[in-house]
């Protein structure tokens, strides 16, 4: 490498570092200020907290009074059950779309995929009325069902594309060995379609964990609210103590960030592949 190339590399490194700081700093800002008390925060929000007396009380109150972990439980239940049914329904349907021949297959596939772009806002009021007739409003099932409707088409698109890449010969060989429908799913489709399945799990965990609109409309009572709904209503009170709110926001950011930190390779790859189709 000559001098000019080295200079270019250094400049690129610096530019990317600036971008990285701009992406990381907000979380750091939230964390630092969650460890201050109100007056300390108002004096200078950019200062480091006073390390001799960190305001862990913000977190204590978040956990004991605001009961943030119970809210975590609500969100977690919705996320995991949604993912379970997305996979349970999505894998069998995608297998059929990718590998089985039946009448009307292409029409059905087209109809399901074409609903992908219909935003949830379009259907939310009719759904709310439907769920209220079924006494499902304020239950997590209303949110789970709505999510299934919105996400199934996307998940099926992704998994069908991946399952199509599984060679027919492997399935036929398994059938020669006497494998039935569920054997093929279990021993061929699921292991070989693993990248798409893992991507679905991670991606929809993050999306459902962070979502606000659907649970805010469908969950109105305090006990069933998700963590984002509860925090959105907490921060909408202007009089609230910002450092206390920061503690809640920081805790709520951790699960999605953690999942991303562990599985970021799958997500980056999946997002990239989805785009180029």
């Amino acid at each position, binding site marked *: 490498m000559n001098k000019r190339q080295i200079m270019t590399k250094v400049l690129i490194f610096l530019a990317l570092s600036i971008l990285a700081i701009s992406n990381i700093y907000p979380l750091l800002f*939230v964390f630092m200020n969650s460890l201050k008390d109100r007056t300390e925060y*108002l004096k200078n*929000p950019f200062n480091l907290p006073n390390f001799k007396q960190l305001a862990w009380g913000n977190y204590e109150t978040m956990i004991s009074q605001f009961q943030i972990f119970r809210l975590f439980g609500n969100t977690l239940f919705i996320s995991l059950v949604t993912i379970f049914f997305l996979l349970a329904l999505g894998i069998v349907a995608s297998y*059929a779309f990718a590998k089985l021949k039946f009448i009307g297959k292409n029409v059905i596939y087209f109809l399901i995929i074409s609903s992908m772009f219909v*935003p949830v*806002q379009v*259907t939310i009021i*009719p759904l709310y009325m439907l769920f209220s007739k079924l006494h499902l409003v304020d239950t997590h099932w209303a949110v789970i069902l709505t999510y299934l*409707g919105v996400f199934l088409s996307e998940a099926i698109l992704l998994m069908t594309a991946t399952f199509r890449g599984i060679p027919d010969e492997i399935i036929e060989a398994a059938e020669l060995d006497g494998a039935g429908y569920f054997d093929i799913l279990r021993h061929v489709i699921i292991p070989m379609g693993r990248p798409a399945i893992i991507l679905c799990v991670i991606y929809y965990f993050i999306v459902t964990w962070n979502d606000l609109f659907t649970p805010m409309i469908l969950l109105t009572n305090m006990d069933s609210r998700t963590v984002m709904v509860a925090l959105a209503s907490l921060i909408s009170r202007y009089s609230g103590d910002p450092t206390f709110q920061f503690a809640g926001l920081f805790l709520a950011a951790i699960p999605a960030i953690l999942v991303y930190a562990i599985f970021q390779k799958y997500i980056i790859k999946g997002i990239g592949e989805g785009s*180029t189709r």
Partner: protein
Amino acid sequence: MTFSWSANFRKKKALQGILSVLPVIFVMLFIRFYPIGEAIYRSFTNWDGLYKNDWVGIKNYIEIFTDSPFWTLLRNSFVLLISVPLQIFIGLMVAVLLYEEVAGWKFFRAIVYVPQIISAVIIGYLFRIAFGLDGPINGVLRDIGLEFLSIEWLGNSGTALFVLVFCLTWFSIGWQAIIILAGMTKIPPSIIESASLDGANFWQRTFLVIVPMVARTIEYGAIMAIVWTFTGTFAFIYSITYGGPGYETSTIDYMIYTKFYQASADYGFATGLAVILLIIILILTFAEMVFTNKVSDWE
């Protein structure tokens, strides 16, 4: 493999296929297609969710177009669309920088996507605090002697929309960068290398060599970003401006939420808005399909 394709076997497979997609069809009919139809039908009624449910023709639509903040909502969405070229331009720059694979580029690639992982509730709150009257941004402006710039950013439509555009751009750069980078890895490296050897500078290489090669990816990113701006910004608007002042930063999807919670429960009107939103999205999706077909014809 003709041995296995006996009539019986085919029948069995077809039955398996139909049974496999049946649960999805059921869920989609119940949770997706029925509510879409319901929304279209109810938009022609004075539905309030309880007692009133009379056919009123296009009265809701007339009200939307003539006697409602609809045009403000549409204007706001179009202003927010300013973030689309910004995020694509910066995302492209970031993708080109990441492509050089300098030390730690995988770490940078992971960090670039981080805003997408943070909930809009958290991001929105930070932007609201940052641009508050006594917030950090105004504090810094006052400290460096730009007192006259320390205004109530979220208090009037122009600057409040600017804050939203800023926020949506910051949020979306990483997504654009990652998909453009993925598109770039499909370009044979020799093409980009030879451009450098031929003495093309950074800008020439980016816009004359790379951009034409990733045109499809950029176009996909643009359409998705436009659709998202119409449908995905609720949580940002809610946590930064609450759609205010007045309706000055509301969008169509935000107004559906507002109408839902208003005491008058004018669901006919709200479903009318929903139908208009649906039509906008359908036009955009259709445009994308036409456009992508055209692009593949060129190849």
